């Protein structure tokens, strides 16, 4: 655990000192501007628009952080040859993966927390209510990004950074359309195509589940059971992805 924590802290520090979180500045400016400009045009739906734009932006910016940081987590160690430093020591490859994930997860936690604060601030300044359901929704975005981060690491364990970035972005886009894939599957008549889509729907994470906004807008929130299932899905998917990444890394030769 100490090894994983040390690797995680190093990854976290690397991203922080890389000034990736300056992205949050753009987020804050963007959200404030969007809210102030659009709300007067929205005929009483300013809160809805601010929330929708805010939560979607947290998700998108979080995705960008996952891609910018995640896609090179392993490649950079190979390119800079710092992998010598790590694997000349008694570090398991799976511990390495978990450590990298922990660092990325930490960055996302800080980013989502900060963006969530900004969103609540914008809502408060605009005179809109925000209760526990909004906090829950921000938490759901964090769970969504947890799933995405684990998938990003799995992809990074066996591809180049550019491909990893593209595949992660694709997973984000397709993952949000998972519900549509399932619907499409039902309307297909060819069993082979149905099987293919079913396989895709199992691999691609169900990010769409974390984007259910109605409980937020109606201020009813997710039930404890629903939230529990949401957390369970994120934990299980992330564990599965990181385990697979560990297996991939275990079999990989490092040509430094």
């Amino acid at each position, binding site marked *: 655990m100490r090894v994983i924590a040390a690797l995680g802290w190093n990854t976290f520090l690397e991203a922080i000192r890389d000034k990736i979180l300056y992205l949050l500045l753009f987020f804050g400016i963007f959200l404030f501007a969007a809210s102030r400009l659009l709300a007067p*045009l929205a*005929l*009483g739906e300013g809160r809805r628009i601010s929330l929708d734009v805010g939560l*979607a932006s947290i*998700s998108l910016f979080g995705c960008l952080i996952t891609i910018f940081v995640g896609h090179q987590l392993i490649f950079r160690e190979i390119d800079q040859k710092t992998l010598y430093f790590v694997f000349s020591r008694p570090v398991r490859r799976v511990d390495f993966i978990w450590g990298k994930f922990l660092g990325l997860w930490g960055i996302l936690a800080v980013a989502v927390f900060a963006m969530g604060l900004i969103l609540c601030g914008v809502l408060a300044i605009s005179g809109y209510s925000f209760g526990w359901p909004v906090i829950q929704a921000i938490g759901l975005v964090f769970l969504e990004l947890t799933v995405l981060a684990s998938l990003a690491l799995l992809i990074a364990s066996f591809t180049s950074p550019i491909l990893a970035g593209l595949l992660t972005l694709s997973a*984000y886009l397709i993952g*949000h359309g998972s*519900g*549509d894939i399932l619907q499409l599957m039902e309307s297909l008549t060819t069993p082979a195509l149905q099987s293919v889509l079913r396989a895709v729907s199992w691999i691609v994470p169900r990010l769409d589940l974390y984007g259910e906004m*109605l409980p937020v807008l109606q201020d009813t929130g997710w039930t404890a059971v629903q939230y529990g299932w949401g957390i369970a899905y994120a934990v299980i998917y992330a564990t599965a992805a990181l385990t697979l990444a560990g297996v991939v890394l275990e079999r990989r030769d490092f040509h430094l």
Partner: protein
Amino acid sequence: MRRAGSAGLALLLPLAVGFLLLGVAVPIADGLDASLGTATDDVELALFPKSGWIRPLTCGRAELAADYIWLRTIQYYGAHRKTDRQYPYVRSLLTTLTELDPHFINAYVFGSLVMTEDLGQPGDAIRFLEGGIEDNPESWWLPFEIGVTHYIHRRDHASAAPWLARAADMEGAPESTRRLAAYAAQKGGDEDVALYLWLEVFEQSEQDEVRRVAYSYLQKLGHPDFLDPNPYELEEVQDS
């Protein structure tokens, strides 16, 4: 000094050239835009895609697309309200919007208002609202609007009363909904329903003025518990 001066010029000159070029580029772009001919709003809206095409492109953020369509719809309505007061595309826009986000209550309400007030089609408005109720059974506002549409635009008090009564029973409905339902029932000739509703108004209201009105209607309708003179009116007499 000469060195500082030449260094300043070395900085200012490219800056000036850069801005000058930008100043030339902008009118070029404007001219090109004009020559290409931008589609009018109406042409663009006539070709506005259906929700089935938009949804896959939203990557799970259909409500964001609905928000965008909402803003476009408001602008479209506002622009035409100032000019020709013709809104041929408002229905299709709102239909697409509510298909993308079936829980956009305000869109149903706004749509029904436009259809009744501007397009003079209360029947379409009621069908639009009924569609909204299917996806939002817990919303009091939609049955309320149906009731109001029947009551005001169709003058069909008998049809209005049950919708208003339904809305009045739902969480969040203002107190006045029940009174409106009672009025509608009474005007529609359904005295039993009217009695029931006025009794509820009387029992639930905390305002004396409202209880006075309810008492008087209950008295007129002959409710056995309300045969005595209206105590609220008596109090007013005593006060005066």
